[in-house]
């Protein structure tokens, strides 16, 4: 058999001649039986016990994710907010410490360079600064993109803090309970998309109530050298609640069920935010940013294609690049992500379909490696936490 453990195009593209980078938790993953694979230049855990077991643990109890490969970019200085406001589709100038916003970075033609989280934070010494969390696969691109703008804002200090830090996601209905003994009450009480600079048992830690799974939980940023202790602390504290380490395999099935886009699949430089269904991430009123004039026009136009969910009949998943057809055999769209959904017990996909035909409930066909499967267009997300 071709024992291809993961077929994702991202992994094929990530094959590099230089040795892969390791996160601060690499040794723990190896010692704990993780199946590793290169991803965005890093050796990452794809699974431990198995994708379905890890996915289910996150939906019913608690999953721990090493997401240290993601880029973490820090901006200090009085005009850091202006710099970022110029580059992001979301407004940054009115952000207060403790706020986190999902945003896009676009080029002049409104094409998406990356999807990011921007946080306004206050350090223990009362310094206000901004943190941008970017996709691992886009970090180098975004850092290059920043350079001419940093030159225009010489009073902004830019630091790529990725290698000096680690990032751990704690996701699931038991996430808050498991962190009771680990984080101060003020962190446990953070609202959705709020963040705080705090300590995890006397180790500096940025906590945010954010995630990429559709479950409640936190994302923690700690110093690289503290990561193994923090990871072990959470696993121990969450053990009775059923805490499990979770790899990138289940991270993908979880985000797909939650209808969340993934760069390189639903998002790319050829796709604008409106087509991607991310108009909420664009604040056009009374501001200009790179791409804003293009997007202002786009916002008024009807869109040729629309991002939808597909519920596939049968057991075979319709993965990226699978073509979609109507019953008259006309090609009407393409799948961007697909998998077998452990929660729903059937294959699900996200696809871009011609807008005229992208009606919820419509029956279409999807080509899966040469044979057709029936599919129904459904609203996103496929799963919402109770």
């Amino acid at each position, binding site marked *: 058999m071709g024992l291809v453990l993961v077929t*994702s195009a991202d992994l094929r593209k990530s094959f590099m001649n230089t040795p892969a980078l390791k996160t601060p938790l690499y040794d723990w993953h190896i010692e704990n039986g993780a199946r590793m694979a290169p991803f965005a230049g890093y050796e990452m855990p794809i*699974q431990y016990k198995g994708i379905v077991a890890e996915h289910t643990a996150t939906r019913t109890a608690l999953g721990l994710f090493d997401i240290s490969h993601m880029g973490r970019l820090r901006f200090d200085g009085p005009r850091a907010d202006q710099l970022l406001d110029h580059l992001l589709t979301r407004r940054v100038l009115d952000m207060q410490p403790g706020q986190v916003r999902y945003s896009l970075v676009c080029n002049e033609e409104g094409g998406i360079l990356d999807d990011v989280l921007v946080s306004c934070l206050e350090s223990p010494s009362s310094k206000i600064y901004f943190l941008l969390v970017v996709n691992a696969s886009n970090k180098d691109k975004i850092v290059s993109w920043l350079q001419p703008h940093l030159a225009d804002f010489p009073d902004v200090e830019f630091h790529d803090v990725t290698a000096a830090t680690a990032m751990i996601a704690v996701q699931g209905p038991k996430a808050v309970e498991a962190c009771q003994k680990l984080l101060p009450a003020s962190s446990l009480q953070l609202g959705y998309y709020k963040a705080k600079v705090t300590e995890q048992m006397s180790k500096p830690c940025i906590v945010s109530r954010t995630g990429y799974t559709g479950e409640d939980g936190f994302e923690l940023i700690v110093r690289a050298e503290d990561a193994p202790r923090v990871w072990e602390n959470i696993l121990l504290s969450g053990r009775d609640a059923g805490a499990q380490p979770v790899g990138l395999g289940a991270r993908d099935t979880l985000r797909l069920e939650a209808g969340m886009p993934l760069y390189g699949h639903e998002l790319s430089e050829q796709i604008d935010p409106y087509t991607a269904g991310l108009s909420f991430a664009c604040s056009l009123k009374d501001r200009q940013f790179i791409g804003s004039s293009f997007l202002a026009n786009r916002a008024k136009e009807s869109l040729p294609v629309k991002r939808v969910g597909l519920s596939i009949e049968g057991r*075979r998943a319709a993965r990226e690049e699978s073509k979609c057809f109507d019953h008259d055999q006309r090609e009407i769209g393409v799948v961007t992500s697909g998998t077998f959904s452990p929660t729903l017990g059937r294959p699900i996909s996200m696809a871009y379909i011609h807008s005229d035909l992208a009606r919820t409930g419509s029956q279409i066909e999807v080509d899966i490696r040469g044979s057709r499967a029936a599919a129904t267009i459904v609203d996103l997300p496929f799963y919402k936490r109770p």
Partner: protein
Amino acid sequence: MTIRPEDLRYCKSHEWAYAPADSGGIATIGISAFAVAELNDLVFMALPLLGQTISAGDEFGEVESVKAVSPMYSPVSGEIVDVNTELVDRLESLNSDPYDQGWIIRIKMSDPTELTKLLDYSAYQKLLSQNG
């Protein structure tokens, strides 16, 4: 009939063939316990049609896990004379029995000497240990 892994011949691609002397030239084909463990979380198996002729090394089907699809390659040439269609509804049984009840297809061999080109049990075990 109890199929023992020690009695089987193997492809490097982890399919096995069982053709004892009294099988009348019919090889029973499946995938090894190693392959099942590597794939994990099986959700679907695509099987060939009865009567198809196939050559050694040809793809005879696919097995799909949550994350990936893997082709299955035939160890021998011949005509497909039996297909274990009901296996598809109990793929998780392969975790405990990929041999007896886990057989996938049966082939009436056109050239039984092809079996000698496959790995025997100890050679297959050696291959697995080299891969770590």
